[in-house]
């Protein structure tokens, strides 16, 4: 039964790859629904298909079959330009490796999604300032990524993900490259963003304890299939 109020919904989503003669079922008939403002952790071991599912939701990849819905718009029906707009306006993404562009300053990195979305220059400065203030990096505006610590880089990546004011934040192992203290700081920041901005967050992680502490709901995947989907007790 479809939930028409869902921020994200997958309907028998399937993503298969052909690797040589073998067929890899990275995501196999997965149906989930995420409510607006929900903080969901996608758990599973390496190769379980959680990152592939995240890429499908981001519109970076297309399902082999089934539907991927963001605010009830099926991404499978979109062409590449529409998918780009979806990534630009609806989705914010953070990665395990931060993926900041090394030759740009923090400020320029955060401004990048605004350039891609063709936002007017006059508006950009205010939006960049707002996003950087949110992650408390105001003093590091002109620093390049190599001059920032891992935690600062991930916060900068978060600012970059927030700057276009998306409704859904997708985080792929956001604490995977951080020590436990810094990881907790990032998780606290994600929770604060989730609560203050009512932003829907889907986080891929293999750290079960951390997911239990911060996420509202945990979805467990194994071999591309949905194993369990339950709210935190």
């Amino acid at each position, binding site marked *: 039964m479809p939930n028409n109020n869902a921020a994200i919904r997958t309907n028998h989503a399937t993503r298969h790859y052909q690797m040589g003669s073998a067929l890899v079922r990275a995501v196999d008939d997965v149906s989930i629904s995420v409510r607006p403002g929900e903080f969901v952790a996608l758990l599973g071991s390496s190769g379980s298909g959680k990152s592939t599912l995240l890429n499908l939701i*981001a519109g970076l990849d297309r399902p082999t079959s089934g539907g991927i819905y963001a605010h009830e718009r099926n991404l499978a029906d979109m062409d*590449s*330009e529409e998918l*780009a707009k979806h*990534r630009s306006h609806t989705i914010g993404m953070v990665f395990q490796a931060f993926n900041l*562009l090394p030759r*740009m300053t923090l400020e320029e990195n955060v401004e*990048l999604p605004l*350039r891609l979305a*063709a936002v007017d220059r006059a508006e950009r400065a205010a939006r960049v300032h707002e996003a950087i203030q949110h992650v408390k990096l105001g003093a590091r505006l002109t620093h390049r990524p190599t001059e920032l610590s891992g935690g600062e880089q991930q916060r900068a990546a978060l600012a970059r993900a927030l700057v276009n004011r998306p409704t859904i934040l997708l985080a792929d192992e956001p604490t995977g490259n951080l020590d436990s203290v810094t990881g907790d700081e990032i998780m606290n920041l994600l929770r604060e963003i989730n609560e203050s901005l009512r932003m829907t967050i889907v986080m891929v992680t293999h750290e079960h304890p951390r997911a239990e502490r911060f996420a509202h709901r945990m979805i467990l995947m194994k071999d591309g299939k949905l194993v369990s989907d339950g709210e935190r007790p």
Partner: protein
Amino acid sequence: MKFRDLTELAWRNLREALLRNSLTTLGIGVGVASLVAMLSLGVGLQQMANQRLSRSGLFDAIIVAPRTNFRGFGRATQDNDAAPVPAGPLDEDARKALERLPNVVEVYPEIRFPTEIRYAGIPYSTIVAGVPESARRGGAYDGMTGNFFSGPSADEAILQIEFARQLSPQPNSLLGKDLVLRYAERQSLPAEPEANNNSTAASNGVPSNGESAGLSGGFSVVPREEKLRIVGIVETEPASGFGGVGRGRVLIPLQVAEKLRVAQTNDFRTMLGARPGRSAYQSLTIRVKRPSLVKDVEDSIKPMGFTTFSLLDATNNLRQVFAVFDLLMGIFGSLALIVASLGIINTLVMAILERRREIGVLKALGAADSDIGKLFFVEAGVMGLIGGFLGVAIGWLIGFGINFATNVYLRRQALPPLTVSSVPWWMVAAAISFSIAVSLAAGLYPASRAARLNPVEALRYE
């Protein structure tokens, strides 16, 4: 993405791999330089030839003759067949009518006669020719030693250098000296009553008003002398009209030549052949404002009952030859630019490999495939733009070097300087545009490849 953002990002990317991109841009620059150097040589030679021909007076001149005079002479025959206009006399009235035609600069008869010159008491046989006043403005006498005639009726002479050397081993010392022109003046005889209807009033080129009435009875020849001051010496006599090739070795103002009423070799034939009671010219030379107007003026003259002749076809052939020459130069010059474009493809394909992850990030942040394609496309265009400017500068320097070396050689040979290589503004604009176009064409494949990159695979790339 907005164009300004695209160019800023492209510029930033180009600065990242500075050495590689600079070398690629230099490659384009060398290609453009080769193109510019080749074309500038072609254009320079064409301009030189055009200038020479223009100065020769061969291509802005029309010879006009009565229909009968050119019978059987090339185009004249064709004209006779084509236009059933009654043949008119080429007399003073006709000359005035021709002068009134639009775009006609001047109309003058051809005056040239063999005679004797005395200098320092020694006689020399030579040929004297009348030079129209317009020759001063045509630039044909630029670079001569001394000056052009001080006025259209000045008793002055310009000597051809070879003849001047006969007069003095140091030709320049002749300037300001006088020489004496000895010639045979034609004087008309009183008309006999019977002869009035049958004899002819004619002269070759000199039917002055006072003479025309009495010429009907024939003429006698009287020896005369005229003192002329030497004002200039020319290396080679600039031609004037079709009879102009090697016309004379002593040049005098045309008005002076007309005033002398010199008996010429074909006066006798003209006298017998012309219509009775009327003086007529054998032929007239018409100078028009530009060679391109020759045909229009010719078309205006033909209905007047005269036949015309010009070297228009020859100029067209010359233009065709230079067009082919320029085309070949352009093709050879472009080869280097085509090779340089392979450098752009190589550089951008390398950049795709290096920036694979960055392309993935950009796509994850909302860049469309077309944005990524445009980014690489603009990078190729920027390299083409900079390479184009660089190439034009190098090409200009090569042209400058060619001119310099040529003129050093010419100076050693005691010859006047020349502009062999010329880089006009249109060539600068065309070379830069061509450079950008070739670079953009070279950027098509890398741009398309970058745009099609799978973002998931790109993000996974280490």
